[in-house]
């Protein structure tokens, strides 16, 4: 086997056992790796009756075939589990430096079940692993725990760590890689916390990746790396990070303001944009392993109420979630809020969105003083958010902290009184910081059919509507108008298929834009030794999409759940998209037809499943 190693670690924390697990080789061809392979392994090994936070739940880390390749954008990996936030399938993607190291250590991933008797860590080295009890790390923030692990094992060890939020089972807790990169979404940090697994540390002495055709691979990787270095858009991101075009987004109406109640705030655009972050607080850019883009930010704020020492800075999602979404244009406050969230181990998107919900619900009289412990948070008051709310949520302290730790959807359900009118989500996952009313109507469709819930990285639709994609080889040569439904269902078919591939190959969606479809196929062939044509690759993407739908079907999701909160489908009141309606149902109906999804059950026909080599899965769901 090339690219992949063929080996997973299987860890049962209850009985303190570690074994080697070898997925059948054809799983790698059929489900690629990362999100797709994790779905297949979950299908076969997961307990669908198990609560997300029970010992029986399964947490999977999975690499794509390119982890370890010295290619810009290739160093991401996936984590997957039943989400405690949404109750159904979730996968999350993380950059950083862990993925290549795990591959070099001889593994394609880790399956973790059970619960440790005492807080523990998993130590992985060349072709081996062990569980160590480490109660002294419990209750430490991500920063202190990471520093402690680096001191104990050495700076070159890579770490995955949860913070207090994960330990306390906050439903949107995340997992942090070396204190900077995150498996942010859907609460996988809480799954890890429920297993009393504080951290995974990793070191390999090997630094080589075995590929199928070394000469061709070197040639292709050189070509792609050079293209990334010359890319106009990636150079802009190198200079000003992922928020480089925040100003443009504001003028399009893409950046959400005060819990998605407004689509335009001109002064904020200049205050929060990436170039302002660079001018005011940037120390340097930082990169994931082998990536020349360096879109990550290292910032420092020397003085004022939001002073922070040199360390990870916010990317676009965090800037919007703790800036415009909360009615603030204080960039220093955003930097501090992001840093605090990282240390507590909380997803900045769901956390910001849940706080935005509570501000609006309080403002409109749905939350009384008895439910908020007397705390009153207002739009733009990030000081109170940082000092009071974030620690309360992470510790589930007081009534308000415990309420918000459940996420906005569960919190609104508990409060009642129509407070769900202010939730902005799909399938229980809070929407990211791109408002489809301004960013593009296709995004509304892909948010709704994304398996984990409202998600902007489940597909490249955002880039397609911007005009940053051109794939004539697979029929995507549309010149899309963002604020229209024209050609969006057709584009969403391509987007969801490519998204499934990208998240299974574990490639970065920014760097991916520089790779043509034939080059994608070539990458799979020269690295993993496949013999693919374009059709094989696209079929694999579609297969993964269908399998993840089947998983959600087993969790009770149906076509009606492919929907968005009413707020996202209500015409904007200002900005570029003012008054424009999204023709959502029409787009969804057409998408379902093109994907052969049943309009009630939401899953494909048996024949389509069979055509995509999902016969066994079809039998499980539809009977033999």
């Amino acid at each position, binding site marked *: 086997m090339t690219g992949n190693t063929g080996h997973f670690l299987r860890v049962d924390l209850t009985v303190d056992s570690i074994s080697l697990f070898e997925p059948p080789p054809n799983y790698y061809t059929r489900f690629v790796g990362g999100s797709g392979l994790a779905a297949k392994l979950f299908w076969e090994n997961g307990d669908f009756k198990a609560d997300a936070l029970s010992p029986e739940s399964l947490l999977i880390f999975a690499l794509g075939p390119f982890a370890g390749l010295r290619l810009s954008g290739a160093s991401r990996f996936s984590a997957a589990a039943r989400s405690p936030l949404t109750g159904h399938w979730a996968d999350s993607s993380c950059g950083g430096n862990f993925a290549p190291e795990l591959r070099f250590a001889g593994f394609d991933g880790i399956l973790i079940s059970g619960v440790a008797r005492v807080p523990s860590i998993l130590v992985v080295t060349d072709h081996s692993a062990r569980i160590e009890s480490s109660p002294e790390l419990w209750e430490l923030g991500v920063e202190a725990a990471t520093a402690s692990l680096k001191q104990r094992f050495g700076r070159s060890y890579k770490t995955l760590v949860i913070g207090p939020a994960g330990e306390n089972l906050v439903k949107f807790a995340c997992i942090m890689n070396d204190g900077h990169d995150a498996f942010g979404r859907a609460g996988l940090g809480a799954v890890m916390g429920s297993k009393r697994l504080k951290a995974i540390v990793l070191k390999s002495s090997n630094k080589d990746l075995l590929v199928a055709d070394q000469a061709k691979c070197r040639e292709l990787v050189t070509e792609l790396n050079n293209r990334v270095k010359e890319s*106009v*858009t990636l*150079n*802009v991101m190198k*200079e*000003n990070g992922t928020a*480089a*075009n925040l*100003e*443009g987004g*504001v*003028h399009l109406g893409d950046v959400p303001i005060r819990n998605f109640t407004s689509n335009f705030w001109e002064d904020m*655009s200049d205050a929060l944009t990436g*170039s302002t972050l660079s001018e005011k607080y940037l120390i340097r850019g930082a990169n994931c392993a082998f990536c020349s883009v360096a879109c990550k930010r290292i910032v420092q704020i020397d003085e004022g109420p939001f002073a922070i020492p040199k360390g990870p800075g916010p990317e676009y999602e965090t800037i919007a979630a703790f800036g415009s979404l909360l009615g603030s244009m204080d960039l220093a406050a955003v930097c501090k809020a992001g840093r605090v969230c990282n240390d507590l181990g909380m997803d900045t998107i769901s956390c910001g969105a849940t706080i935005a919900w509570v501000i609006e619900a309080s403002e409109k009289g749905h939350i009384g003083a008895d439910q908020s412990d007397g705390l009153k948070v207002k739009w733009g008051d990030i000081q109170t958010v940082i000092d009071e709310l974030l620690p309360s949520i992470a510790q589930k302290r007081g009534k308000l902290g415990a309420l918000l730790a459940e996420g906005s959807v569960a919190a609104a359900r508990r409060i009642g009184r129509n407070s769900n009118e202010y939730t902005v989500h799909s399938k229980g996952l809070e929407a990211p910081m791109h408002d489809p009313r301004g960013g593009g109507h296709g995004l509304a469709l892909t948010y709704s059919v994304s398996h984990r819930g409202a998600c902007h990285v489940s597909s490249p639709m955002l880039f397609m509507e*911007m*005009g*940053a*994609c*051109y794939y004539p080889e697979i029929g995507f040569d549309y*010149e899309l108008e963002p604020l229209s439904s024209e050609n969006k269902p057709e584009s969403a078919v391509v987007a969801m298929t490519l998204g499934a591939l990208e998240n299974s190959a574990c490639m970065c969606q920014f760097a991916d*834009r520089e790779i043509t479809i034939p080059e994608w196929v070539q990458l799979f062939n020269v690295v993993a030794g496949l013999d693919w044509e374009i059709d094989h690759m696209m079929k694999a993407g579609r297969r993964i999409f269908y399998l993840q739908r089947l998983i959600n079907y087993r969790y009770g999701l149906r076509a009606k759940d492919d929907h968005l909160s009413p707020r996202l489908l209500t015409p904007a009141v200002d900005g570029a998209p003012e008054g424009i309606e999204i023709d959502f149902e029409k787009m969804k109906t057409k998408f379902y037809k093109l994907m052969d999804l049943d309009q009630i059950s939401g899953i494909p026909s048996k024949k389509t499943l069979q055509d995509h080599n999902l016969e066994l899965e079809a039998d499980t769901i539809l009977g033999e």
Partner: protein
Amino acid sequence: MEFWKDETEPIKAFIELFERAKHDTELAEGLKKVNQLIWFDYTEDGPSCSFHVDCRGGDVKVAPGKPSDQPDLTMSLSADDAHRSWSNKLNPVMAITRKKIRIKGSATGLLKLAPKLKKVAVIYSGTLKDLGWESKILS
């Protein structure tokens, strides 16, 4: 060329556009913030079909041809696509993706001007009208 009789026409229109933009407070401020020497290169439509804008040092100067200094940013495209672009009828991201626009140098400054393209288009339309080229205005 679809919109121009010869290579002098687009340069005349574009230089006039920038001369007018300099007198619009918002656009002038935006251009100064770019702080770059930009060469708009349309030489695929003729050797003298280009102009440059020097936004360095808090001033904005516009002149025909390639600048004598090394440009910080070069944008190469056809004069027809430039006409579409100033008329706000060309998605710049799409044009870059499809290689209709080729860029050399940092596009960060230019990105800041992208939201102002609507205003530029209004001024451009007025420019064309005043030059007697109303028929070239794209609706």
